């Protein structure tokens, strides 16, 4: 049984169709990597699933719960608030810019939602938070404020924060692309750890290497459509579509020219 199903979802910004009849589904424990050029709609797709944007057509089903109740006069009617909230809670999201709360300490950043949303008491929340910080390798930073951390550390905190509400699925939107090259590695390591635990994840990334290493399935998007879908070997190693090949060539070229210095 799929834990997430995206059914023929379309989305417009004004007149522009930024998601065009997108469908896919995700099994529990599966890791899906989405790649595609800038502006192809990857972020918008994640934002729709996380209810940060409304869809105009189609449906999104999380843990057998539909997001759209019915369609009236061509307009999708969303489910009641409490159901949407429950669905939202089963999704965790990691943003490109971390979006940590600057006025809260690292520990408070992580415990805030568990305490206010899940009604955990402070002790439990902090215990869980500390465990997560250990896992992220930043247990000694818990009393500091986000501005004192490097980008890589901030992103690890934001992953911990997302994990703290125990979501069923974790979404990451280019988790490393705001980081200095030196700092990317530490975040990728954490993501690999999560992959080893077989957490259900959807990751948008420019790191083709990451896709090859951890993805169970890769989706390539272009102009709001899913162009190609399959295992990393299929989509990256042996792409069928011309557009996919072009996209990958561009990366490969750059990486060949300025490849590793060994």
């Amino acid at each position, binding site marked *: 049984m799929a834990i997430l199903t995206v059914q023929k979802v379309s989305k417009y910004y004004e007149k522009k169709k930024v998601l065009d009849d997108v469908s896919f589904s995700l099994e529990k424990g599966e890791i899906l990597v989405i790649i595609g050029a800038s502006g192809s709609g990857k972020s918008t797709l994640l934002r729709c699933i996380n*209810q940060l944007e409304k869809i105009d057509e189609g449906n999104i089903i999380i843990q057998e719960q539909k997001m759209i109740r019915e369609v009236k006069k061509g307009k999708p009617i969303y489910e009641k608030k409490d159901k949407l909230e429950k669905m939202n*809670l089963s999704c*965790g*999201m990691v*943003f490109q810019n971390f*979006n940590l*709360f*600057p006025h809260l300490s690292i520990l408070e950043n992580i415990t805030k939602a568990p305490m206010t*949303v899940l009604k955990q008491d402070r002790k439990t929340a902090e215990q869980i938070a500390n465990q997560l910080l250990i896992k992220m390798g930043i247990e000694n930073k818990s009393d500091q404020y986000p501005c004192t951390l490097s980008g890589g550390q901030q992103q690890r905190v934001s992953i911990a924060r997302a994990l703290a509400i125990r979501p069923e699925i974790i979404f990451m939107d280019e988790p490393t692309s705001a980081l200095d090259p030196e700092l990317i590695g530490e975040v990728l390591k954490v993501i690999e750890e999560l992959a080893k635990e077989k957490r259900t994840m959807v990751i948008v990334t420019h790191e083709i290497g990451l896709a090859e290493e951890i993805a169970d399935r890769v989706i390539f998007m272009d102009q709001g459509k899913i162009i190609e879908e399959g295992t990393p070997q299929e989509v990256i190693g042996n792409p069928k579509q011309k557009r996919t090949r072009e996209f990958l060539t561009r990366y490969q070229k750059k990486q060949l020219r300025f490849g590793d210095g060994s």
Partner: protein
Amino acid sequence: MLEKMNIDQLLNLVKLLGSGMGTTLQIFFLTMLFAIPFGIIIALAKNSKNKIVAGITKLYILLIRGTPLMLQIIFVYFGPYYLCQITYDRFTAIIIAFVLNYAAYFAEIFRTGINSIPKGQEEAAFTLGMKKSQIFFSIQLPQVIKRILPAMSNEVISLTKTTSLAQIIGVTEMFALAQKQASFQFSIIPLCVAGVFYLIMCGVVTLAFHQAEKKLDYYKIV
């Protein structure tokens, strides 16, 4: 009009104006107490997606900022009488007028503050399952406070002096006393002493805001 005063007279004057500071400070603090929460509500209303609510708020702010506070005080005090024969206490009227006025100014400051907080934080909080009110009170508001301190300090300093308008409907505060003494003694020294009182108030307010800024310095605005 600048003839010498002896020390006794000066002390007497200071004592007298000091007694008027009671009313001045009451107006000052009561205005702050009510205008701040009311200003937050107006700020949220103006940001509202409901066009009617946003429209009314816009009109309200335009009217308040576009007309002198003096007129507003007169309307608040006498309006109810002409409309429905209700009279009430002049001090209450002053507080209402001041709150209505300052709330509009505060609201614009709050709104700028709220809008300057990166949208991403709201989104992050939302995906963590937090409700709108939780996001507002525990994520946005604390940061808004830090951002608006400089602008607020300006308004609050202006409020210290604006309290003198209370005399329009006969509420005698410090400056009214000073003006009366000036006309009785036929000297501008009482006005100068009032100036010193204001300067002290302004100094205290500046210091308080400085302290607050320092206290909120533990994190950086992103």
